[in-house]
């Protein structure tokens, strides 16, 4: 079946907004309508904003939506997770991999263009994760009947019984959505290294992720590309909801179609959302520094709330650094963001108001570098 990908006209869209009326012409005149959307953007924040926007603005009493999207390299953490526990933030900064916090629960995932995201929007009454996953399995089996894929009761999809190819999460509010990933041709090695946290000594009630062995569909069958898989799922969804197999392309930056969406995109990018929504945690760690043939042990304890340092205790070898300077650092760190660039800028600024000594500078820099690398 050829699929037609059309650009929705603005007029169509405005009719969809006020869907407390019945669905406009163009859909089958069943009581329930459905529509398939695909994002032209690969920006995680824009795509998450689309989910927010649909959740807030579309009346889903008689309507369901399937949203297909892919992103450039990003790590996405769940609503109540701790990024320091879940991923290697330092590596992500170096490799320019973004970090996003989604509004649904669940664990941490890695996205790149080889991963498909599917979001199923329904009313709260029609919220049914297993149904959605069965649909995905059916689509894959339609495509390649010999594929061994099944859904577990944890709402994961497994390939060959052992390898996770999809994880799910959901958000319930006024309406509901269930979204899941699907690994087609993602960078598996980058995925496993970036989802390994190097930060030790964190105590937190944040939702932990459950690590799993993963595999790409592409590795099982090299002819399976993201586009083919997305088309198959869209086709299956269209059959299930008795609608035409039309996939409407949407631009998440278009304010005329999605009024207010750019504000949502901005909010998802703020530090306050990504890091500040981390549940309260404490970090207690030791690290060693080598300085001029001597071995120094440093102990740092911090409490972090809303992503900011609430309590700070640093234990350095006595007199190795001017105590006044260390005291200033601890004092200034309170209320400061738990963030390496903020801490580095702060520590460097403090050095300006202290007597100039080459030795002190060297030690200070060594200590600050070590601290930010080990903790943040």
């Amino acid at each position, binding site marked *: 079946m050829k699929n037609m990908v059309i650009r929705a006209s603005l007029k169509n869209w405005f009719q969809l*907004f*006020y869907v407390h009326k019945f669905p406009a012409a163009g859909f089958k005149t069943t009581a329930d309508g459905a529509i398939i959307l695909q994002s032209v953007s690969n920006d995680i924040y824009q795509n998450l904003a689309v989910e927010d926007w649909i959740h*807030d*603005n*579309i*009346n889903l009493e008689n309507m369901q939506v399937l949203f297909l999207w892919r992103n450039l390299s990003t790590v996405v953490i*769940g*609503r*109540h997770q701790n990024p320091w526990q879940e991923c290697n933030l330092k590596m992500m*900064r170096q490799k*320019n991999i973004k970090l996003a916090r989604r*509004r*649904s*629960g*669940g*664990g941490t995932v890695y996205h790149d263009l080889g991963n498909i995201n599917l979001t199923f929007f329904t009313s*709260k009454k029609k*919220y*049914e*994760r297993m149904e959605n996953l069965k649909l995905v399995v059916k689509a894959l089996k339609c495509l390649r009947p010999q594929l061994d894929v099944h859904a577990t009761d944890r*709402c994961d999809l497994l390939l060959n019984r052992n390898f996770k190819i999809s994880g799910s*999460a*959901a*958000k*319930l*509010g*006024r309406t509901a959505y269930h979204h899941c990933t699907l690994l087609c041709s993602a960078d598996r090695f980058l995925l496993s290294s970036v989802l390994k946290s190097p930060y030790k000594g964190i105590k937190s*009630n944040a*939702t932990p992720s459950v690590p799993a062995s993963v595999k790409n569909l592409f590795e099982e069958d090299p002819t399976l590309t993201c586009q083919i898989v997305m088309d198959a799922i869209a086709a299956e969804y269209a059959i299930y909801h008795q609608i035409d197999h039309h996939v409407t392309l949407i631009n998440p930056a278009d304010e005329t179609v999605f*009024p*207010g969406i750019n*504000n949502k995109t901005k909010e998802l990018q703020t*530090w306050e959302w990504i890091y500040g929504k981390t*549940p*309260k945690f404490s970090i207690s760690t030791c690290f060693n520094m080598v300085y001029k043939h001597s071995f120094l042990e440093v102990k740092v304890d911090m409490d972090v709330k809303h992503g900011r340092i609430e309590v700070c205790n640093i234990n350095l070898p006595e007199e190795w650094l001017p105590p006044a300077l260390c005291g200033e650092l601890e004092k*200034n760190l*309170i*209320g*400061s*963001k738990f*963030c390496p*660039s*903020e801490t*580095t*800028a*702060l*520590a*460097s*600024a*403090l*050095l*300006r*108001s202290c*007597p*100039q000594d080459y030795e002190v*500078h060297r030690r*200070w*820099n060594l200590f*600050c*570098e070590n601290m930010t690398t080990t903790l943040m």
Partner: protein
Amino acid sequence: SSTQICVCHTRSYSSVCFLKSKYVYAFDKSAFKFNHQHRLFRTSAISKGQIVQFKLSDIGEGITEVTVKEWYVKEGDSVSQFDSICEVQSDKASVTITSRYDGIIRKLYYNLDEIAYVGKPLVDIETDVLKDVAPEEDVVETPAVSHEEHTHQEIKGHKTLATPAVRRLAMENNIKLSEVVGTGKDNRILKEDILNYLAKQTGAILPPSPKSEIIPPLPKLETAPAAPKDKAHRIPVPISKPTVFTGKDKTEPITGFHKAMVKTMSAALKIPHFGYCDEIELNQLVQLREELKPLAQARGVKLSFMPFFLKAASLALLHYPVLNTSVDENCQNITYKASHNIGIAMDTEQGLIVPNVKSVQVRSVFEIASELNRLQSLGSSGQLGTNDLTGGTFTLSNIGTIGGTYAKPVILPPEVAIGALGKIQALPRFNGKGEVFKAQIMNVSWSADHRIIDGATMARFSNLWKSYLENPASMLLDLK
């Protein structure tokens, strides 16, 4: 539409007859716009509300228990219907629980990370119940409602009709539904009504004309970051925002890097600054850079004007080393620094930070450009380390990329001098023959520590620096 609002209000008050007639007639829409920051409510007729137990409703999929992950309210907060109360999590689903009532939160039944049960009480809400009693006196005006407070959506007895999505849109934009004219059935407020209302608000605090013109919003101001002297001239335009009557000042503590900078700046102002300004004609340098840009690009380096400014400064510092010094706290000892570690002010997420290029005296212009690229790249990705941010001995601040000509820069301790570079402008000047030509002019504003640097030294340093830049070929003579 202005008539409608009047009708609404007069209708609500007609049974009460406490408003003087001239107040009612004066109550047209323009007056209302200025007054609408004041919330009108009746003072005497509110009875004590009843405590309602708000139970955790069914979430679906047979779920019986959830974990409370975040509270959006605390005891004593007032809430409106559909406001978010808390976030709970169950098996990878995050659920926002919203209030079913208007009222005041009186009790939270769970702490964070506790298990909450479906069907059991989550919070107690005291709901307001307005009695049907005529008040004896005129209404009281209250200060503007801020974004944090919640608007009650009742005009004495009349509930404004709107779907939850429309209410949310109104709340997000600080719009009181009572002020929006509904064009739907039964005066129901539709999304278009909110959008129309918003469009009228944008741009100015003006009484709307009778013909309901939509005032187009002004374009936004774009601030360019302090990049190297590559100019993308932008015309600054005032920022426009929809007029929102918030009225609440916001106080927050100064933390982190800003707090440390307060200390630095306080120390800086103890230094007696004196200023010295000059204008530099950069025509030859502009041409030279044009020639060298592709060469640098071929080596993978972006070449701005800054590497030339830094190198010229370093060459000049060799002749006037007192500008590359540091004094102790009581100004008793002066240290002549061997290395020229020249700092460049950089605009980042943290604010204006100053990484420095080490040992400019032994680096070529190309090497300086390469270093600047590295620092820029680290700066924009928040990866600058302490080594790059400390040890500076002299600073150049390129404020000109944002705008401005003259400045009065503040010296960054423990340094003793700083230069602020204005933007390069094309201006008419006279050449040696008395002819007018198009000159590329940049202004420089120096500040120096007057305890150890005198005006003459500063002027001579500036002249030498200027001569290197106005005749780049002369730099060749002194290059080491």
